[in-house]
């Protein structure tokens, strides 16, 4: 049976799409047949992060309108043939599609793909309801910030109300130095507050921006950056492997290292 997972957060800009792109790619690399579905109608971005924006011919809406077949709308990744993107329409609003239609699309995808990742839009309105309509599992993406955690909590409540029980947490953009200085919530703090199982922690990493600039997910890098490694770890845990959390602890700066840094040594 295919796994249908919605990536959601409530708040925008916490890294849902980055997580979807990297997890999708990592799962495909691991030999899974993966479809990533952009449910952000009107503000699609998943195609950009995967570097597939120039290859979109049809969108999910065209499939629903009967203007093309589903396989014609799917954009197959050349780097990783196990991965396909079902693009959203960019020139339409989130109300252009209904939950029932989303279910039909996803159901059709389950015949070919064993992992379906749905990239939910921010918010808890129509776009969110569409994206959770067919999902059986959810990954909550949040950052250790008050607004992101609050919104995540709201979304967890909505998922529970919609009978999506398998809900797991990815904490994105953690800055270990700030946690050590007690200026940022720790993984334990966030998980304790949200009280759902932890799937992974992604450290804050400048390479994320570099990879989005190029349209190449981090997990494709030959030498994995910290965030890239963390995404691979998350994908392995998603497949049931036991992978320990990355060691993100940072030694508190000593007087001597501060002295060295001060004088540019």
């Amino acid at each position: 049976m295919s796994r249908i997972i919605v990536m959601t957060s409530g708040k925008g800009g916490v890294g849902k799409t980055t997580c979807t792109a990297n997890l999708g790619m990592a799962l495909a690399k691991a030999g899974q047949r993966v479809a990533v579905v952009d449910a952000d109608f009107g503000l699609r971005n998943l195609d950009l992060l995967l570097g597939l924006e120039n290859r979109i011919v049809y969108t999910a809406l065209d499939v629903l309108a009967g203007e093309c077949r589903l396989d014609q709308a799917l954009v197959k990744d050349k780097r990783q043939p196990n991965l396909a993107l079902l693009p959203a329409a960019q020139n339409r609003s989130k109300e252009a599609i209904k939950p029932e239609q989303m279910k039909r699309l996803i159901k059709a995808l389950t015949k070919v793909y064993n992992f379906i990742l749905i990239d939910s839009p921010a918010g808890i309105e129509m776009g969110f309801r569409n994206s959770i309509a067919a999902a059986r599992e959810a990954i909550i993406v949040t950052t250790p910030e008050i607004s992101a955690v609050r919104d995540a909590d709201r979304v967890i409540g909505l998922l529970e109300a919609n009978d999506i029980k398998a809900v797991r947490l990815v904490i994105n953009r953690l800055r270990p130095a700030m946690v050590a200085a007690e200026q940022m919530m720790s993984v334990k703090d966030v998980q304790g507050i949200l009280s759902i199982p932890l799937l992974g922690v992604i450290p804050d990493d400048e390479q994320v921006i570099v990879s989005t600039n190029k349209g190449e997910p981090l997990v494709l890098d030959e030498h994995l950056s910290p965030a890239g490694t963390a995404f691979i770890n998350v994908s392995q845990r998603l497949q049931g492997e036991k992978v320990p959390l990355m060691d993100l602890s940072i030694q508190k700066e000593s007087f001597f290292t501060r002295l060295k840094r001060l004088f540019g040594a």
Partner: protein
Amino acid sequence: MAIPIISDLLERLFGSSEDPHSRDDVKRRLQIVLAHDRLALDPQTMEMMRQEIIAVVSRYVEVDFDSLEFSLATNQRVTALTANLPIKRIRPLGRGPDQPIHADDEVKRIELASPTEASALDAKEAEAALRKFEENCRDEPELIHSPLDIDRSDLPDLIDGAGDALHPPEEIEASEKESNLLDQAERIHSDEPPFRKDGSDSDALNVPDMSIPDATAKATSRPKRNSK
């Protein structure tokens, strides 16, 4: 000019001198905001609940309004309402919140009286207290007419099973309570001489003599405590 530079240098070397841990702030703020979010109570309802809780508690004790606290906290997805109501003192039902006990009254009551004198005194006091109580009720009608009085329907069984239990809860109104008070006053008048013959337990003697309506308050609270 040089001082800020030096202090900056020192700060960079030794780390910030005062270290305000914003992590604790964010956790505290989140806990409160999530408790409210999860409960999904609108502020009006919350305020109404607050007012009613204070009204009920104020009927029995004098609450320190300056330092009372209501908070919602959440832990492991379970939300709890915590009310912290510092008590100034127990409020006798016959007295308003701002009426101190008169020193004269105190002195009078300490004296031992003959049974007949005592019961006569009691009857007088009962009447006076009742009048006071009615006055208070006029001043603070919410003490009696608030819909929360319905809660008292649980209590009659505990109040030595007297008349109250026979009435459906809707009927428990101001008049009901007053007649109840009268009952109580009569009962004390007839059955309970306010001192014991042996006179050995003079402390116990002083307990019920604050005023007669207070005796009712005790009657409500004592069996309740025992039942737990």
